[in-house]
């Protein structure tokens, strides 16, 4: 009966109908998403510029953008900055703080858990540009951090000038930790209580249960979370741009900021595209890793 009815519902060409249903998304994705990605591979080898002659007559320049990139000391600084930012703000900061929060929040009273959860989530739902402003105020010369130092009888510190990388890292931890916390809360919720109890009866201490039972069981979540926050952090632009502008000097110039400066401040669009190609390739590798880890059923 069911088969008969679905046959009448599915009359006509399924492939034609699917094509029509998928057409709008294909057009938009090809034009505005996959198109630009493919164009990256082309424009990275041109001298396209924002103004002047090269903005009209685009010339193919081979690997010139890449050779000048690899001989540019700023490029290496920005790669180092990106790695430092990535490791300390995402992999160590957000991931470990998120895990500690999720772990400590288990078995706490419901209302307490909710309050802490809301406070951490507040940093996450705050738009990135406001996050930058919030931390600009916190680390400013007359900001809250220095007011607190004043109460303690200490001299104020020019945080954004002396420790700019620390400032952007803390701001990004504040903004992103909730995501890891949510991932780990879900993962810890899936760890069967019995296994932990069995380990406890066998005399395992808290640390042993953490290292030998809990961590191995949520290894999958740790890996996927790591890849996801790496991808998110790799793309962070607004936070750093508004908080320090990549400065002072090039102290917080990560790859996205470097890309922006070359493309839109120095008008070297071709060069900027070469940098974005590097960013894109890192992103593609991380995305493939992520899909491998997910083992989704489609």
């Amino acid at each position, binding site marked *: 009966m069911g088969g008969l009815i679905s046959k009448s519902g599915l009359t006509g060409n399924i492939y034609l109908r699917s094509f029509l249903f*998928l057409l709008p998304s294909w057009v938009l994705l090809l034009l505005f998403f996959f198109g630009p990605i493919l164009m990256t591979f082309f424009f990275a080898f041109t001298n396209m510029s924002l103004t002047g002659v090269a903005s009209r007559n685009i010339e193919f320049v081979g690997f010139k953008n890449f050779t000048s990139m690899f001989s540019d000391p700023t490029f290496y600084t920005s790669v180092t900055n990106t790695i430092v930012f990535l490791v300390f703000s995402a992999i160590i900061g957000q991931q470990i703080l998120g895990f500690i929060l999720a772990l400590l929040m288990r078995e706490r009273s419901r209302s307490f858990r909710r309050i802490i959860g809301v406070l951490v989530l507040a940093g996450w739902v705050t738009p990135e540009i406001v996050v930058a402003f919030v931390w600009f105020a916190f680390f400013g010369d007359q900001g809250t951090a220095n007011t607190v130092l004043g109460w303690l009888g200490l001299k104020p510190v020019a945080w954004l000038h002396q420790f700019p990388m620390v400032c952007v890292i803390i701001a990004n931890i504040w903004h992103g930790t909730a995501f890891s916390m949510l991932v780990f809360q879900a993962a810890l919720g899936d760890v069967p209580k019995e296994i932990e109890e069995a380990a406890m009866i066998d005399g395992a201490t808290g640390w042993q249960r953490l290292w030998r039972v809990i961590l191995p069981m949520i290894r999958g979540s740790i890996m996927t979370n790591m890849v996801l926050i790496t991808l998110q952090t790799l793309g962070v632009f607004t936070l750093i741009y508004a908080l320090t502008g990549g400065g002072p000097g090039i102290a917080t110039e990560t790859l996205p900021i470097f890309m922006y400066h070359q493309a839109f401040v120095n008008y070297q669009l071709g060069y900027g595209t070469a940098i974005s190609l590097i960013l894109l390739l890192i992103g593609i590798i991380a995305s493939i890793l992520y899909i491998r880890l997910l083992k989704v059923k489609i």
Partner: protein
Amino acid sequence: MATRGNRIRWNFYFMGRVIPYLILSLIGILFVVPLLWVIFAAFDAHATLSIRIPQATIGNFVSILTDEANQRSFMNGLFLSLGQSVLVVIVAGLAAYPLSRYQLKYKRPFMYVILFSTSLPLTAVMVPVYQMFALLQFQDSLIGTMLFLTASALPYAIWIMKNFMDSVPIELEEAAWCDGASVWQGLRLVVAPLMLPGIFTVMIFTFASSWGNFFVPYILIQSPEKLPASVSIYQFFGQYGLVEYGKLAAFSLLYTIPAVTLYILGQRYMSEGFNFSGATKG
């Protein structure tokens, strides 16, 4: 002996019970302090960069809300985000239908491409997108920006929509076809209403992320009168310099509220999303 036992027990209790509460409270305080400043400063007539008890006023909000340039930037943001989220729901909903209902040869590769695209950093494509907009003479257009934002949100939306649609039982649709409904009517009159939680989820998250997006309109839009709130707030940094922190805080707060409200709403829909699978029972 008894006191020693008590002490060990108390130590154990302290380590296991009190310490976690202390650590969590400390983290909670550290998370809320930076935010408190914005809230206090927004209500402070003479706000400084430091956190302090405000000289209560709503003057900052009044001057932000009565300023025409600010009104326009909020309207631009609303136009951009609302337009984008409606487009995303429609286009992703259409795409999800064959992916959920039909056996298609290209379904698996397509879904993998979609999944792959959800995780690519958008930052990396902004320079080529700008170049493309320049070539197509598409710069400085709110519609063009909206279309790009729509495309960038599509992979995630298609993925979520397909999952939601998978949980709408096909039997309900078959019943409608039996009554003479077309595929299109079945989608519109049977599937769409049952997918409302999914539709709201996609719409809310699309709106919130679009509302908070600074980089895309910052690159693609140049005219000051077309800038959405996410970008015009940045101009405040320079415009008011070191003086009017109260206004900047009030603007930040007004600008943050829609995003926060939507995330709260979204969470409710998120959990309700999968509760209608019992529709065929009974």
